[in-house]
């Protein structure tokens, strides 16, 4: 008995007879005997909800949580109650891709709002309906740079971008006759002097990140001009929560802005789902990857929203599409939209500032009271990197016993990084007591 299978025996019989066959097996007779699956799949039998729930609950409880200072692309922020309430509307979460605009204005308008929000935050002109995550968004952005510049074969990127972004880029471009060139860092930020040396007409774009993997803010003054002289594009990846306070990609003159919107109302959920956002200058619109919602009118002249510029996409353009992406992260982007609508203009500012204030409180306290050092003397947002006198993993391990996830040992993301670097994230959720406990705990761990 399966609650999602509505057919009664009587109905099955009648339907078979209407089809003109005697048994369901007959409907599978076209499967060649040789490759037909005989026997039964080696899986347990179906179970009741209670049994299934009990199993899943046990699994969930086999995970442990602690006061978290983990970041590196995934953060523990407040999620307003509106987000869950509205994402839980079945009209949103059980609907298909809005290919039929007449009965999909809910999703379409929400995505149009999402696009607007991303444009606003990044200070750029166009955006799409979402990409998978911030890391794959980087690959798409670089591909966009290659596709929208002429005769280019090289992408430059800063060594300060997230190591996982780097690794995803490598996989993506490995077989595409596109060279990836890493630019060095200096004191925890991109060494901007190195850009010039690598620039040439073959360079499609430069990918940088701020706040970068250390949490440091980078200074891109003059960078877009320099790139534009070579018809290269500037791609800036940013934690969007930071954009409530720090200079946005558009303000730096970037052509493409990317990042990951997990901080905007999405649970950490072991890394997914989140959303890769992308925004760009107007002229890149027709090369953008992924779905885009546009405004139009219906037959009565009423404002209506619709998927547009589909000629870019794989279901029309097939191998000549700007990207292969089809399903995206729509529901999560809706979550971002609800989040931003809820916290609003002032709320986002305040939250961004609190992140900064709290991170600075902890960073200073650690330096003063625990005698630890920052890896570099650079400005930061809500994340900073400690250069510890011991292995970061050991310190973090010791602090775990105090119920604290102390941060991300950077060599865990990139084995080539020194093993004493610990990146610590402090969001608005961390209280002064938790931070003070952190300081006590690390003091103990360092002894």
């Amino acid at each position: 008995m399966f609650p999602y299978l509505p057919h009664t025996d009587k109905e099955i019989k009648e339907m078979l007879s209407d089809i003109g066959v005697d048994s369901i097996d007959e409907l599978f007779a076209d499967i060649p005997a040789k490759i037909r699956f005989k026997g039964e799949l080696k899986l347990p039998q179906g179970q009741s909800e209670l049994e299934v729930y009990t199993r899943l609950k046990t699994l969930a409880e086999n995970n442990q949580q602690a006061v978290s200072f983990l970041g590196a692309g995934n953060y523990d922020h407040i999620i307003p109650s509106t987000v869950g309430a509205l994402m839980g509307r079945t009209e949103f979460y059980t609907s298909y891709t809005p290919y039929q605009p007449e009965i999909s204005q809910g999703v379409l308008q929400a995505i149009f709002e999402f696009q607007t929000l991303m444009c606003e935050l990044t200070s750029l002109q166009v955006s799409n309906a979402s990409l998978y995550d911030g890391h794959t968004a980087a690959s798409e952005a670089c591909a966009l740079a290659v596709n929208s510049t002429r005769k280019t074969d090289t992408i430059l990127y800063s060594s300060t971008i997230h190591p996982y972004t780097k690794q995803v880029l490598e996989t993506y471009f490995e077989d595409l006759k596109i060279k990836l060139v890493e630019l060095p860092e200096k004191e925890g930020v991109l060494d901007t002097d190195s850009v010039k040396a690598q620039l040439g007409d073959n360079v499609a774009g430069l990918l940088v990140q701020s706040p970068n993997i250390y949490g440091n803010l980078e200074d891109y003054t003059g960078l877009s001009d320099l790139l534009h002289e070579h018809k290269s594009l500037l791609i800036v990846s940013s934690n969007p929560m930071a954009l409530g306070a720090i200079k946005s990609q558009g303000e730096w003159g970037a052509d493409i802005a990317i990042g990951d919107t997990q901080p905007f109302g999405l649970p950490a959920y072991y890394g997914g789902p989140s959303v890769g956002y992308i925004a760009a200058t107007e002229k890149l619109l027709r090369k953008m990857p992924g779905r885009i919602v546009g405004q139009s009118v219906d037959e009565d002249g009423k404002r209506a929203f619709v998927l547009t510029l589909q000629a870019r996409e794989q279901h029309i353009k097939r191998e000549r599409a700007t990207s292969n992406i089809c399903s995206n992260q729509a529901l999560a982007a809706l979550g971002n939209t609800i989040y931003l609508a809820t916290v609003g203009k002032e709320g986002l500012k305040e939250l961004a500032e609190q992140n900064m204030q709290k991170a600075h409180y902890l960073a200073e306290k650690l330096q003063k009271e625990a005698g630890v050092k920052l890896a570099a003397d650079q400005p930061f947002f809500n994340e900073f990197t400690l250069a510890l006198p011991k292995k970061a993993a050991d310190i973090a391990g010791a602090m775990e016993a105090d119920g604290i996830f102390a941060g991300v040992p950077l060599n865990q993301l990139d084995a080539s990084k020194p093993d004493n670097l610990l990146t610590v994230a402090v969001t608005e959720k961390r209280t002064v007591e938790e931070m003070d406990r952190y300081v006590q705990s690390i003091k103990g761990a360092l002894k």
Partner: protein
Amino acid sequence: MSTQLKNKLIFERSREGRRGFRVPDLDVPARKPEEMVDKKYLRVNETVLPEVSEVDVIRHYTRLSQKNYCVDLGFYPLGSCTMKYNPKINEVTAALPGFAGMHPLQPQKTAQGILELMYDLTERLCEVTGMSWGTLQPFAGAHGEFTGMKFFKSYFKKRGDFGRTKVLVPDSAHGTNPASAHISGFDVVEVKSNEKGMVSVEDLKQHLDENLAGIMLTNPNTLGLYEEDIGEIAELVHEAGGLLYYDGANLNAIMGKSRPGDMGFDVVHLNLHKTFSTPHGGGGPGSGAVMVNKKLEPFLPAPTVRKRGSEYYLDHDIPDTMGRISGFYGNIAVLVRAYTYILTMGYDGLKRASELAVLNANYLKEKLKGRYFLPYDRVCKHEFVLSAQKMKDAYGVNGTDVAKALLEFGIHAPTVYFPLIVHEAMMFEPTETESRESLDNFIEVMHEIADLAEKDPDKLHEMPTSTPVRRVDQVQAAKHPVVRWQPE
């Protein structure tokens, strides 16, 4: 409601100074951003983020939601999309805080529950597909295809076989197939379908040379037909040194009946958001898990979940890995749902689901083919394709008109104009969760539309009229794209 409150964008509801969210009181010293960070790093631009109350937010999106169709409201006969019912228990388990609160980089010994789930799920998906191990990281089907193509690449690179640059894709394939092959660095070559709607073995043979990397197929194919020559095709491709990729979007037809591994496929992607009942979310997130046979296992993307004794861990140490394909480990919340579904259904339920999906499709096909042209008239699997070409020729009513008329009757449209090999294609996939009366209602409506096409085609061109908006001007949208709201 008067228009004053209706049909606004959230930005148009904004009132300066209004707030919908209280930030906790700051418990550390309040410092201005410019006291912490040099001004040059700070944002200058104001944003037009909405300024609304919580009430505004809730009403705005609640009303918006009511302008949207969804599976919980009715039938989606949407071919190639497997819009089955999304069970509610899946939502309950996915919401468990023990999963939702986990950071992807927290120590693995504190993540044993989720790792066990991922391990277990991989194992079960392998059993269903007849493969040996896999990755749950791909975020969607297309991402799975990309991953599959990277398996091809890695395999040939490992063998030093650098000339294999060509991937075959049938003309009936989904657009993501060629696109994925292309962005992975392959040249895409189209293989023709034969008069039965199946891959033409004759044509295939033309392409079996030393440049062949492999072929991408879905089986049942996008016409809903089981490729009867699949055994031979696999042998031919393997003999030519190529690999076989299985697009699992259509797996819902054959669970417990036929396994891609047994057909001869080397790599398989699954759309967990189709076959395994996770909701579509208005376009995502999904999951495009990829399973491979022993031959391709060495090239798995890093990390992959493994077990040592009773401990589960993420294995980053894969010497021949294709590399990393996503930031973390995929859409985990989707995996929890799919796993829940597999536990609920069991081997018996999955098989029964496929049986009933095929029963429903054949029932619909038989009941519609009298009124609509069925180009390939044989037993189908989970879906089938009709053509509106004759209707178009006779009455000027095309596939779009039929699709839009269905909306008027409160039913979602079928997939139209795909696969490309059928003119005015309309692709119907009822799935197993539609009841007999839901199908009968649909049949009745389709007959009514066929009647209207004959008697009053203009009425069909007008439809829909009772939906939140009527037909939307797509040309204007593309010609003068407006992709964001602008403040006045």
